[in-house]
């Protein structure tokens, strides 16, 4: 794309002053809405950086995004869908109450077309930097979106379309699908002899008992075999995709898709972990993702073992409408999808959902509650499933080294985000 090249070569656009100086009122709104109990005094939380340059409800005519032109071209070419995929912030220093910041945008690049789960699309990247009154940079952000062409067969995750490949559910199998809807992978167990069995059935083939209950799988398994489907077209699916027989650590096998890595990277013997994929308003499927996909699997999914506790402590956030709306407003994000359920549904979402500025703020909150007295140097967030109202966001973490924490934010649909937080070297 010639335009993309021209935009990239143009470098940073002229600076725009942020609407308000760094101020205590906005910091207080932000910390209260996000539940952040840190002591900030006259220092602004680093993850608030983008809040200072948000336009507010009324956008000024001179506030144009660095990639607006490219996004418009892609719209015109039929790539009308958009979803944010990455938000990486690097903090040069903390900013203080009273500072007047300015911001500059720079177009990054465009790559594609690529085949994605959403459909064919282009990844568009831009950068935003913030400067102090001395024109010294205080922070920089990479932002990437996927502009995609909604497929003829809508992607499974999109609402509106009903996923066509539905399981038949009978008396003997309903407990399994109920479990999936409750975020559990249930394995039938004979209540008398204890034998586990999948797929389930009414009579224990070992002791012929009709008494059954179930255990909840840990969600850890290994690919026993797999295929990559290319042809013929399958309704509701976009080839190529991987299907695997997964051997669970409990000893039974189950079939599912391996998502989260290119299908040609699946291997026999590959450790995988359970994720739940929402196919439409009614159907959730138990699926698999490489166990070493970032972040590493948390010690144990909820309910797998009653005593399991995330090593670094988990942070559970009930996503009430109040939480979603107040955090959106506290981050000066007035997009209707974050406060107006009817508007959210009209745009194909299930409900209002958490905005990205809040997600990155929550990653910072979790990181600083986990690693005390540290200062973030950068936060890289990779975005996944939406965090809808009514859901629960559970943040768990894994210390990679002294200065690195990997964070996973899970909702019932799977990972809402995976993030890497780096801390500044301790003085």
């Amino acid at each position, binding site marked *: 794309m010639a335009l993309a090249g021209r935009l990239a070569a143009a470098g940073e656009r002229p600076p725009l002053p942020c609407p308000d100086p760094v101020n205590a009122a906005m910091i207080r709104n932000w910390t209260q809405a996000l539940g952040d109990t840190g002591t900030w005094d006259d220092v602004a939380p680093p993850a608030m950086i983008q809040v200072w340059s948000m336009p507010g409800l009324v956008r000024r005519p001179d506030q144009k995004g660095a990639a607006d032109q490219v996004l418009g071209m892609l719209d015109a070419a039929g790539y009308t869908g958009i979803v944010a995929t990455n938000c990486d912030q690097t903090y040069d220093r903390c900013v203080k109450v009273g500072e007047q910041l300015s911001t500059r945008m720079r177009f990054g690049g465009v790559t594609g077309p690529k085949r994605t789960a959403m459909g064919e699309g282009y990844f568009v990247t831009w950068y935003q930097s913030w400067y102090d009154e001395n024109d010294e940079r205080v922070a920089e952000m990479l932002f990437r979106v996927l502009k995609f062409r909604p497929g003829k067969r809508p992607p499974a995750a999109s609402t509106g379309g009903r*996923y*066509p*490949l*539905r*399981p*038949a*559910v*009978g008396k*003997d*199998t309903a407990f399994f699908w109920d479990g999936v809807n409750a975020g559990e992978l249930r394995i039938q167990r004979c209540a008398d002899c204890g034998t586990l069995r*999948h*797929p389930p059935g009414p009579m224990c*083939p070992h002791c012929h008992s009709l008494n059954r209950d179930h255990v909840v799988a840990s969600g850890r398994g290994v690919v*026993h*075999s*797999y*295929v*990559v*489907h*290319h*042809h*013929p*077209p*399958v*309704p*509701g*699916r976009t080839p*190529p*995709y991987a*299907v695997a*027989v997964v051997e669970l650590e409990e000893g*039974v*096998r*189950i*079939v*599912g*898709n391996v998502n989260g890595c290119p299908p*040609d990277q699946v291997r*026999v013997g590959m450790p995988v972990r359970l994720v739940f994929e929402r*196919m439409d308003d009614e*159907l959730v*499927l138990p*699926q698999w993702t490489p166990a070493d996909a970032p972040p590493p699997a948390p010690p144990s999914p909820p309910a797998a073992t009653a005593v399991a506790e995330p090593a670094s402590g988990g942070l559970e956030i009930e996503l009430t409408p109040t939480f979603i709306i107040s955090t959106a407003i506290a981050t000066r994000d007035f997009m209707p999808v974050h406060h107006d359920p009817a508007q959210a549904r009209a745009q194909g979402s299930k409900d209002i959902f958490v905005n990205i500025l809040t997600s990155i703020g929550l990653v910072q909150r979790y990181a600083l509650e986990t690693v005390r007295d540290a200062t973030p140097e950068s936060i890289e967030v990779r975005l996944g499933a939406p965090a809808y109202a009514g859901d629960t966001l559970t943040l768990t973490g894994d210390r990679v080294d002294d200065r690195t924490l990997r964070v996973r934010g899970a909702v019932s649909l799977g990972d809402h985000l995976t993030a890497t937080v780096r801390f500044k070297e301790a003085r």
Partner: protein
Amino acid sequence: MSLSGKAAIAGIGATEFSKESGRSELQLAAEACLAAIKDAGLTPSDVDGLVTYTADANSEIAVQRELGIPALRFFSRVDYGGGAACGTVAHAAMAVATGQANAVLCYRAFNERSGHRFGQAAPSGRVDATGLEFSWHLPFGFATPAAWVAMQARRYMHDYGATSEDFGRVAVAMRRHAATNPAAWFHGRPITLEEHQASRWIVDPLHLLDCCQESDGGVAVLVTSLDRARDLPNRPAVITAAAQGTGPDQMMMFGYYTGELSALPAMATVGDTLWAQSGLSPDDVQTAILYDHFTPFVLVQLEELGFCGRGQAKDYIKDGGIELGGRLPVNPNGGQLGEAYIHGMNGIAEAVRQVRGAAVNQVPDVRNVLVTAGTGVPTSGLVLSAPE
């Protein structure tokens, strides 16, 4: 009492094999059945039994009406897709051996290419035993026979070091045989291993040329008692053994949950029964008709039936091992990869021709032919022999 040697196939009949027959499935069934009756030197009024697949759209009474058969005394259906093929003959032989019927036609007729194609994804699941089985698989886009076989093939490759080229050698052999069979769809069109490797992915690890064709057509065989068959025009193909079988935790093509994916335990059950019933061993077979809807299961069948040890089929088939002139010519008609996909029924007809000594790709001195039916499903098998 044993079924061995009580009954024989006295007649075979078929339509042409095509991609678009241009006529109803019932017409194909009636044409094939009438041809088998005539081949046996009988008339429709001599037939008093009909057996087909549960999957066949043509009911026994519909075929009876077309042929003008006055009355049926025996009719039955065999389930589980192509696994039914030899099972129809087993049922017919049991009926004849027990006096339930005198002459039984086994038939399979469909427009599998121009009508309902099995290779396409079927989206819905009913709440019955089969629907529930499919429900553990279909929702994941795991929806075609090629995919279901590929899952076992991948594990077989992993366990035994077999490669896609090993699978390709089966395709090359079948297409070589079909090339000299005028009835075969791929008559005159052999392939090379390089062409197999270059063919597009259907479901990795299966290439296009690992998958059998889709065909329109009908095939029927007529089973009667051996004593009666001796008086009919053609040399009888004696039913020396006939068996059906399943394995542990049997499913429809989803043998993933118990034991080894690299195996076909249902075929082991069938093989054990066939060898015990016939008193024969693999060394006594001059040619075999092995169900070849997808190439990998030809290798696994050779192992399950005792022609070679576990994991050794890749060596067994090297250097033309299953080609004409090889140690065990498999599917001299070109099989379903080369001749036509008539759900295994055309393979039974080829076995009869081999016993008669009347095949276009005739294997010398055929005394016993092994025939198998659909694999990955509950299956069946036959040993057909030249009369003493």
